[in-house]
């Protein structure tokens, strides 16, 4: 899974996308702007999981827990008056990272299928904490009365500000993960994915590296959760439900494993797909049963495109056949 010839031009496309979004932001209508913000948040979420699945080779099926915890902490810490962004954001990411430390420390003692099951089970535990207790308003969830703000400068109540903050967060996440992948740490993670035994034999503290990746991924998922709570103004336990973990895993593989772009492409494609399947104008009466079409689409996609959409592009262009 080499990056191929993309190393020289690889950064150009994402930067161009960010610039286009940055310029076009204020011109978008409400629907388009809302939709793009949603996709960008999901992209951050998918990118955070890509660090685990694509880079390190750890298939986690409980990533929604960190996303949900980030969102819940944002709302719980806001209070009725609204909170300070500079405090809420670190709190949300920190709480998610802390739970990731706990889950990672235990689940990384296992591997393979065990790891999949354990991460799923711990995510479900977090789900039940919010679902069964009154901490987060039970199954109804809780509302965020006033969105986070930083003085007069950054008020997420304002659409345009929210758009740019989410865009900045996406650029930050993408840039950070790109740096991580180029660093020694990232190289070690890639080595662990390819051959864990050899890395251990070479003297790398494999467990520590994996745990660090797990916590970083958790914190970034918490960032996505913070943004989601700020956008929606409401959180409920469904955010942590395992359907969400399954969906984000699907985004990562749908786009293509082992590429940061893959996670973003996957998030865009999946959200579009879901939107199309549930639109009456396109699907007619089938729109009521979008889960059925989505389920079949998932099966077909995974069967036909084991390397994701990026793999499709590579297959179609003769140059990138490497």
């Amino acid at each position, binding site marked *: 899974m080499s990056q191929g010839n993309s190393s020289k031009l690889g950064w150009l496309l994402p930067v161009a996308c960010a610039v286009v979004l940055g310029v076009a932001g204020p011109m978008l209508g409400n629907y388009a702007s809302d939709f793009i913000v949603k996709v960008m948040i999901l992209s951050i979420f998918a990118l955070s999981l890509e660090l685990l*699945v694509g880079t390190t080779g750890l*298939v986690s*099926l409980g990533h929604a827990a960190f996303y949900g915890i980030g969102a819940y902490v944002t709302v719980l810490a806001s209070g009725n008056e609204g909170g300070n962004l500079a405090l809420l954001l670190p709190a949300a990411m920190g709480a998610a990272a802390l739970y990731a430390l706990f889950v990672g420390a*235990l*689940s990384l*003692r*296992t*591997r*393979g*299928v*065990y790891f*999949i*099951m*354990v991460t*799923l*089970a*711990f995510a*479900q*535990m977090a789900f*039940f*904490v919010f*679902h*069964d*207790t*009154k901490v987060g308003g039970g199954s109804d969830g809780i509302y965020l009365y006033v969105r986070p703000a930083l003085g007069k400068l950054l008020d997420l109540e304002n659409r345009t500000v929210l758009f740019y903050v989410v865009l900045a967060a996406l650029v930050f996440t993408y840039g950070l993960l790109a740096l991580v992948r180029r660093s020694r740490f990232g190289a070690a993670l890639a080595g662990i994915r390819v051959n864990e035994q050899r890395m251990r034999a070479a003297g790398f503290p494999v467990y520590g590296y994996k745990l660090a990746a797990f916590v970083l991924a958790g914190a970034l998922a918490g960032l996505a959760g913070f943004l989601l709570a700020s956008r929606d103004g409401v959180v409920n336990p469904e955010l942590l439900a*395992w359907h969400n973990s*399954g969906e984000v*895993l*699907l985004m990562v*593989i749908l786009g293509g494993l082992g590429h940061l772009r893959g996670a973003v492409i996957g998030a865009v494609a999946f959200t579009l797909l879901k939107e199309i399947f549930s639109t009456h104008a396109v699907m007619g009466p089938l729109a009521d*049963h979008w*889960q*059925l079409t*989505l*389920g*079949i*689409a*998932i*099966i077909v996609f*995974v*069967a036909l495109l*084991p390397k994701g959409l990026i793999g499709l592009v590579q297959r179609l262009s003769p140059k990138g056949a490497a």
Partner: protein
Amino acid sequence: MDFGTFLVQCLNSVQYGLLLFLVASGLTLIFGIMGVINLAHGSFYMIGAYMAFSLAPLFGDQFLLMLAAGVVLAAIFGYLLEWAFFSYLYQRDHLQQVLMTYGLILVFEELRSILVGNDVHGVKVPAWLDGSFALGSVMSYPWYRLFASAACIVLAVGLYWVVNRTRLGMMIRAGASNRDMVRGLGIDVKRLYRIVFAAGVALAALAGMIAAPMSSVYPNMGASVLIICFVLVVIGGIGSITGALVASLLVGFVDTFGKVFFADLAGIGIYLLMAIVLIWKPEGLMGRRP
């Protein structure tokens, strides 16, 4: 808590644990032998419960006949599903198995919603199992729950016998440890897999049918039982039927008594148990070290 209540809760724990074992043993068979991680296993349990809801009015008081009919239907369904879908999953890696069976769950859930709707249903206990068994003034216990426990014990013993004492069981055990060797011996592995898969589906569906009169039949029941099964497999150790049994009984106790003592946080008890086991023995109680 007086002695009678304690006894009742103990019986409930065992009954719940045995029921979980029925579902988990199917998962263990399918995973241990075919190496397929099947997220849709919970759906088979749900399908069983809805089958009980739909079949009960047809069979009236012939409850055992209904169970038999349901098992046959579920086994045929499993056989066809293996032929049409799962047989293509063996060569795929775990990640793809997870995603494709996840897609399958969405399909099953939506088909259920189209066919039977999203309401919560109850299933009547058959008349001959209605009422309670009284032990003096100490306690009384519903006959149906005793029947459920007995049925699960019979099935567990039967499963143990098949796996450890029959030729089919020998092939299953051999297939679990070395697939190529079994193929080399001239055993039709494809058919063996199909039979084991059908049996796994039938076991899960049977558990769902038995559970239906005790708990309500509701849309999300597949997912919740699946996750408990995963916890069981982690606690018991992958591929070990005995491990699955021990873990099921443990989880049955923790869950039942958790609900008695900590109503609010009952859901978390089994995960704490799992965390403790992971700290102590990451490969599970009866699992082999990888």
